[in-house]
């Protein structure tokens, strides 16, 4: 069926465009909150002890916690921490993961075997457990946490890139490009990268979401970011005992995590192409 009409592909439907648009807008709003929020000059550590657990909508837009600190200010600082940390961790995982995946696919042989064995060893441990083990060496040290997350995350990029690149590199189009005298840089740019880009974008979105959840989970079990530094996970922990008096206060950080994940999932949704 190579009739020209059939190759135009299905028309991009409105629905899928809207989905991504919504996700993008939501993510942009969260990023703006993370960037602009801390500039509002409300100290997230300032305690207003006469206004503990103040309700929403009074002097404090989202109320205060059990120590009289502004929840809005703390959420904004936590957003900056989570998004900044996740973005950096993602880059630290995606760049080496992608490059090593390409090297393994290109070189094959013992290089490929060695890298694959390393990846399989890391993959044998559940991601969260791995981060937990690394983080346990220096609880609360954000650099160690960063190392743990990146070590767990690069494997995903490595494996996906290696598998897709290996089948592409064996294809006639790459054989033709080699015969025509093109080198690895050109082949990666013209033949491999356009195919990998949408897959990497999806992996990146899930990687950021997963990292944010990981940091919050670690705070929740007290090996992650330590109070008084505001972090969504440890905010939930701190406010949990006051759930009966101020349920909405506990839900605020949970809602932030939820919104971020929704935004990333909508963005990473089905590629209209």
């Amino acid at each position, binding site marked *: *069926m190579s*009739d020209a*009409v059939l190759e135009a592909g*299905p028309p991009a439907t409105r629905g899928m465009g809207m989905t991504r648009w919504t996700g993008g807008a939501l993510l942009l709003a969260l990023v703006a909150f993370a960037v602009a929020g801390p500039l509002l000059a409300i100290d997230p550590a300032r305690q207003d002890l006469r206004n503990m657990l103040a309700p929403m909508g009074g002097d404090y837009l989202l109320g205060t916690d059990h120590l009289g600190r502004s929840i809005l200010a703390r959420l904004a600082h936590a957003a900056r921490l989570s998004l900044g940390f996740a973005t950096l961790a993602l880059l630290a995982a995606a760049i080496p993961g992608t490059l090593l995946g390409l090297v393994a696919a290109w070189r094959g042989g013992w290089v490929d075997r060695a890298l694959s064995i390393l990846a399989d060893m890391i993959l044998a441990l559940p991601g969260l457990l791995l981060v937990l083990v690394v983080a346990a060496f220096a609880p609360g040290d954000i650099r160690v946490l960063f190392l743990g997350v990146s070590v767990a995350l690069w494997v995903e990029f490595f494996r996906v890139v290696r598998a897709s690149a290996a089948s592409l590199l064996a294809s*006639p*189009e790459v054989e033709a*490009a080699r015969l*025509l*005298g*093109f080198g690895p840089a050109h082949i990666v740019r013209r033949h491999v990268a356009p195919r990998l880009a949408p897959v990497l974008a999806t992996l990146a979105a899930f990687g950021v979401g997963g990292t944010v959840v990981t940091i919050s989970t670690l705070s929740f079990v007290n090996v992650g970011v330590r109070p008084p530094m505001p972090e969504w996970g440890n905010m939930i922990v701190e406010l949990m005992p006051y759930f009966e008096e101020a349920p909405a206060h506990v839900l605020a950080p949970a809602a932030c995590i939820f919104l971020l994940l929704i935004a990333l999932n909508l963005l990473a949704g089905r590629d209209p192409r």
Partner: protein
Amino acid sequence: MSLLVENLSVAGPQGRIVQGVSLAAGPGAPLTLIGETGSGKSLVAAAIMGTLPPGLSAAGLVRFEGRDLLPLSAGERRALWGRRIALLPQEPWLSLDPTMPATGQVEEVFGLVRGQAQPAASSASTRLLAALGLGGKAAERYPFQLSGGMAQRVAIAATQAAGAALLLADEPTKGLDAALRDDLAAMLNARAAEAAVLTITHDVALARMLGGTVAVMLEGRVVESGPAAQVLDAPRHDYTRRLVGADPSRWPRPAPTASNAGVVVTGRGLARGFGGRQLFRDLDITVHAGEIVAVSGPSGCGKTTLGNVLLGLLRPDAGTVTRITAAPVRFQKLYQDPPSAFAPHATLRTALADLARRHGIAWARISPLLQRLRLAPALLDRLPGQISGGELQRFALARVLLLDPVFLFADEATSRLDPITQQEVMDLLRAQMAERGLGVLLVTHETALAEAMAARRVMLDAAETQAAAATEVATAAV
């Protein structure tokens, strides 16, 4: 006549693609639609089947066993699939379930579509496969262990297991060599006694073997139809005449090549195995400048491997290859499936510009070459998937010619093109070869094409024991 099509049209967003098509077929009265790629023949089949791509709609009358098919809902259509209407897909080895042995693929049709209980379905499947020549051990094989011809048989068995009264065969000879094509024609003929068989092909030889009615399609219309013998032997429409004349058996014979031209590549005592199987051994081959050497033989006999060894893509297990120059870019290849040899996301202009930049070729050299190959400049801004297979193969030819090759390996380079396009590409290849003193290794499973193109031919044998017996045939020069 169990199938009657009257005044069928298929319309898309840009207007009508198929119009005024009227056809009929029934048991004992097979119908063959022939025409080039893009002539709309596959759309006619899709309209009958009810599988038109989104955005296209059919109008007119399609009456099958007394029912109007076009007004039926998608669900009612689907209820007919397999039971009353069956599709034999092109390249059926791609449509078989890779995790199921041959007999299972047919058995599930008996069981799930026809509703037979076990063990009746199982024994019916074994019997049907045996009747089609796949008895005993062969029926227990998995698709990857089946040859193209065997996979074709399994697919045919699956289409007839549920007793469909209409069989649509879409390009059934694509990828099959001449011997398998004859087998396939015999199987379709046997099927035609009981069911209406509608075959879509651009293979004139197959149309001749199937007999019955032939309808020729061009640009969405039937330009000529009638009994096969009449249409193919005494074509009235100009397009049909060209189509019939484009068959390689009717091309002028090649002149013998001058033997004083230099040798571009020589293989001595070559041996190579693949997947534990010896493909050829003690094979000697020489290609001179300005000549075409054809390598033919059945599927899987190592034709492509031989070409890749001469190119230097593969190392021979034994023997030596001597090339006239050490520059690897002067040894080039044309691929069987042109779209698979181009980066799909880059326009052809980008592809050629990359090549020009890599090798310091002035664009001024490219334009006249494209003109020689009859490629319009407007095509440059399209993606490889947006032009026809013939055009893309000519771009592939342009791309390799820019590098001043001394040797070109054409690997089934026209086997996916319709006959007229094949002749066009081959004529251009021949002209360039003569002009530039290019040595060409032409790999094809079509004996007629090998005879028409090459004065010297090498036959590779499939049988393992006879692998050494690569015989060189000198075609008598006319």
